[in-house]
């Protein structure tokens, strides 16, 4: 058995017996993301579904001055409340949240309406409150619809075509596919996947480097006539194995969680079946050696378990940077971006979620760039291990 394989088997078995490794690699990492994500998504969905279902509450003051308007609003799905309020009182009410939305019909309304002049209406709302924003939009749309129906009727009375008042017709065409809409929600799932994957190898990378140093087994190991690259390689492989297992478990957990999250209720296809999970696994696999090599590279510089834990936990945040960047600038899959590991995995996985075709060349470039960087880090780490300072 070659030294590399001996090291791999030993590290794999040794860590399999370590409760800390098992908990973080095979339990917390894979379960934390999917469960948190599932809970978050169901809450968001629940909120938006209930918002659109609930009738909008509207307080009207001076409704007796506009009986037609009130009749029109009553025919809509609104919860109306009639309270005589001065403008100042209404402002206070809205500011303090006792009414979400107040419509005031001023005294001059009736006179101006009959005179054919624009009749004023006051709609008082707090736009900084995201909860009422939807209600405001709805009420404004209803008022506009009422206004244009009046306008059309006036034109008809004067023998003019109502179409004169509609010089342009705007048609909104939303190209979002149901899957595409889900992406907005599912976008940062890719980060959870990469995070859980790194968590899987975290303790092994620490244990096989700083841990070996701290428990004093390193010197005996380094005194053996074994190439240091074989030692590093074996430890790296074991770290990769745990990361791959963690990745597989995380994806499985996601598939299961999404069976219970009612994304379809919003007209989104959640699109995370076993097939997609397998695709994700294949897309993320080249990132495994890179993550492992990065963690072992950083672990070399640490003297103790605790120190390594501190540094490596911040390494877990590195893959977020490109992903955050991607969502801020809403980057789409482009060949040049395939050279940036973690970003390329994120973009490719997002493409899969959107049901977009992905080019084999992009996949190859994403894999090649991750593997190349992994190799560079592996060589650098092996070099470090050859140095005498390794023992200090």
């Amino acid at each position, binding site marked *: 058995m070659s030294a590399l394989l001996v090291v791999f088997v*030993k590290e794999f*078995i040794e860590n399999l*017996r370590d409760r800390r490794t098992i908990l973080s690699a095979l339990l917390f990492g894979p379960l934390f993301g999917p469960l948190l994500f599932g809970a978050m998504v169901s809450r968001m969905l629940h909120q938006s579904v209930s918002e659109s279902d609930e009738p909008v509450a509207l307080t009207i003051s001076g409704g007796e001055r506009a009986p037609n308007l009130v009749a029109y609003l009553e025919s809509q799905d609104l919860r109306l409340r009639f309270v005589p309020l001065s403008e100042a009182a209404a402002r206070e009410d809205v500011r303090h949240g006792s009414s979400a939305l107040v419509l005031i019909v001023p005294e001059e309304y009736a006179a101006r309406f009959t005179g054919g002049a624009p009749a004023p209406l006051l709609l008082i709302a707090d736009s900084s409150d995201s909860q009422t924003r939807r209600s405001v939009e709805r009420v404004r749309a209803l008022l506009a619809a009422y206004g244009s129906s009046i306008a059309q009727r006036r034109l008809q009375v004067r023998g003019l075509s109502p179409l004169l008042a509609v010089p342009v017709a705007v048609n909104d065409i939303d190209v979002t596919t149901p899957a595409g809409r889900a992406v907005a929600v599912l976008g940062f799932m890719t980060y959870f996947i990469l995070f859980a994957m790194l968590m899987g190898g975290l303790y092994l990378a620490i244990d096989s480097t700083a841990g070996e140093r701290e428990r004093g*087994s390193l*010197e005996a190991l380094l005194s053996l*006539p074994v*190439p240091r690259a074989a030692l590093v390689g074996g430890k790296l492989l074991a770290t990769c194995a745990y990361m791959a297992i963690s990745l597989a478990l995380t994806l499985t957990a996601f598939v299961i969680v999404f069976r219970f999250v009612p994304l379809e209720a919003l007209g989104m296809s959640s699109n995370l079946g076993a097939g997609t999970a397998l695709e994700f696994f294949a897309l993320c696999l080249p990132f495994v050696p890179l993550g492992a090599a990065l963690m072992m590279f950083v672990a070399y510089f640490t003297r103790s378990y605790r120190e390594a834990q501190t540094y490596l936990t911040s390494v877990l945040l590195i893959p977020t940077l490109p992903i955050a960047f991607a969502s801020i600038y809403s980057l789409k899959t482009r060949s040049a971006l395939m050279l940036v590991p973690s970003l390329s995995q994120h973009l490719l996985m997002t493409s899969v979620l959107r049901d977009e075709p992905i080019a084999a060349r992009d996949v190859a470039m994403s894999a090649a760039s991750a593997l190349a960087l992994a190799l560079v880090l592996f060589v650098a780490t092996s070099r470090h291990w050859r140095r005498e300072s390794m*023992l200090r």
Partner: protein
Amino acid sequence: MIEARALSKRFGALQAVRGVSFTARDGEITGLLGANGAGKSTTLRMLYGVLEPDAGEARIDGIDVRGETSAARSRLGVLAHASGLYGNLTARENVRYFGALLGVPRPALEARLALLAETLDLTPFFEQRARGLSQGQRLKVALARALVHAPANLVLDEPTNGLDVMAIRSLRELLRRLKADGHCILFSSHVMQEVAALCDRVIIIGHGRVLAEGSVQSIRERSGATSLEEAFLHVLEPAADVDAAPQPGADPTRTGSGR
């Protein structure tokens, strides 16, 4: 046979070892005696190849130690100063791991493990996780690990540190047995009685130099002291004076400044 030839090593401003030369012969126990910080560990580390000497060379059975996969190191068993075990592996697995890394073929390795378990009396705890072992048991396992490839030469860095009397006794017995089998044993210590009781030859190191070399008897006689401890203090004194002046590397054919 273990040879140090004019070994020198500097760490930053500290010249830890200055031209140390000596030979540890087969069938003998050689003791490296010196105060803490005298350069014992640094010298041994150069002998087993984890430190690269600035000058000079280390040879095991005539083979240069330098190089990652040096053949010299497979002829050498090492009990390093820090001899930690893997807590989640059993004692047997700890020993087997090193045997496999040293390339001992599987059937031979299993036979060797059985033999070591018997000679080192490991059987009562051989299948236990190393985490729960006592200090003395750990040392035995570390020793078995050092001997797993049946090396002709053995280097031990302060092996008795932290051991109780019983464990020290059994270690002594074991070293005597290995010596009788013709092994070359080199061990370092700062405990005078230990060296006096066990060693055929003593090398006294101070300030990174060999100060005296020979049998316990001859060192005592040369310094006119009645005990090794007195002799040790005697050879140390002039060394402090010489320290200021540059000194050429000690010649292996001569004894140190104690003469």
